């Protein structure tokens, strides 16, 4: 495993409260699953940093190894892996996502 890529990912997820590894950018998502998570976060008024894995193959592979998760998107809150598209969607619907973000001190639109 490439130590520098792993270190870079760790820096990203600890340096910003909410980080989404995704295909494309928040403005131009390149995949429906990434777009769905962007839409949920935007709807909730959550500020996040999108990291486009398509622009960096080493991050695309590295983040899968980092989280032991085979697909993108991947959402991190305060350095902790929360889930991919299915989990985020489920947590949004049950209200757990809002609860988790608030517990972690991330501001969410009421």
């Amino acid at each position, binding site marked *: 495993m490439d130590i520098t890529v792993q270190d870079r990912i760790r820096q990203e997820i600890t340096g910003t409260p909410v980080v989404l590894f995704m295909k494309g950018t928040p403005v131009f998502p390149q995949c429906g699953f990434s777009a769905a998570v962007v839409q949920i976060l935007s709807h909730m008024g959550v500020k996040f940093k999108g990291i486009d894995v398509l622009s960096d193959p080493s991050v695309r592979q590295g983040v*899968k190894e980092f989280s032991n*998760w*085979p697909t993108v998107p991947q959402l991190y809150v305060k350095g902790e*892996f929360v*889930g991919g598209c*299915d989990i985020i969607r*489920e*947590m949004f619907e049950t209200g757990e996502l809002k609860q988790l973000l608030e517990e972690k001190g991330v501001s969410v639109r009421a």
Partner: protein
Amino acid sequence: MAMEPAEIVRLIKDGLPGAEVRIEDLRGDGDHYAAHVVSGAFRGKSRVQQHQMVYQALRGRMGNELHALALQTSVPDD
């Protein structure tokens, strides 16, 4: 690059013995599936851990041959 639903079920059941697996071909194209997996092995695990267990059972196919598998996991009712 597609996978047969029966193959997905077989892999999940091999990895999680006794699991109940329901597969739906979302678009009829053999490439976009939804799976609902019910297993006692999920008890006490977080959602992330439960999904990781299913991905483990699929042995690297998820994200490769298997492009889209919407996953839902739960513990059986006693």
